[in-house]
């Protein structure tokens, strides 16, 4: 079945710096969703991307869907300690959400 690969697995960021995490698929995706899970918490829906080349912003977070709909990225600017957690991209089909392995972000103050 379809799978998504996320890189990097771990991201250590200095507070105030920017970083990007990537999500790649070998097949064309109908849509992609991003979730954030804080340490000890549960996954929380961030956004869904559907259209080719789509870009959506949420404050310091910018989400992009690739033109070929085979990849997506999440860019965070001016990282804060509240950004700590694991970011998952997922693909959805047939009543099932399949998660990537996630990018776990730690922030150095």
């Amino acid at each position, binding site marked *: 079945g379809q799978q998504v690969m996320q890189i990097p697995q771990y991201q250590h960021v200095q507070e105030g710096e920017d970083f990007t995490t990537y999500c790649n698929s070998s097949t064309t995706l109908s*849509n992609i*969703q991003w979730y954030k899970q804080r340490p000890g918490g*549960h996954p929380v829906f961030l956004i*869904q991307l559907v259209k080719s080349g789509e870009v959506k912003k949420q404050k310091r977070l910018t989400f992009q869907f690739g033109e070929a709909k085979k990849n997506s990225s999440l860019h965070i600017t001016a990282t804060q300690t509240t950004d700590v957690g694991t970011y998952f991209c997922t693909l*959805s089909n*047939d*009543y099932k959400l399949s998660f990537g*392995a996630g990018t*776990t972000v730690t922030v150095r103050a």
Partner: protein
Amino acid sequence: DTAVSQTPKYLVTQMGNDKSIKCEQNLGHDTMYWYKQDSKKFLKIMFSYNNKELIINETVPNRFSPKSPDKAHLNLHINSLELGDSAVYFCASSHGDLRLDYGYTFGSGTRLTVV
């Protein structure tokens, strides 16, 4: 009001025991799920129910038996618990017709430890 609530939050039990986890959602969603998250944070779907009907069973051992008495509730019963069942189990719900503008809503999780 908690949108998706699951109980208990923590469960420590001995091998061989039988235990249940309960889940309830008040969002009016028609699809509910059980996910298992292992120690490496990998989230894997176990079951999916739409309007009380089982629609996905992802090769889960038959020691795991989900039950949905109505579309707002999805419980998970586990027989003969094994060490490898230790994980965090998340319940989730969504609109099953793929109106995913709001994504899936997850419960806070049940941390199961089998000793």
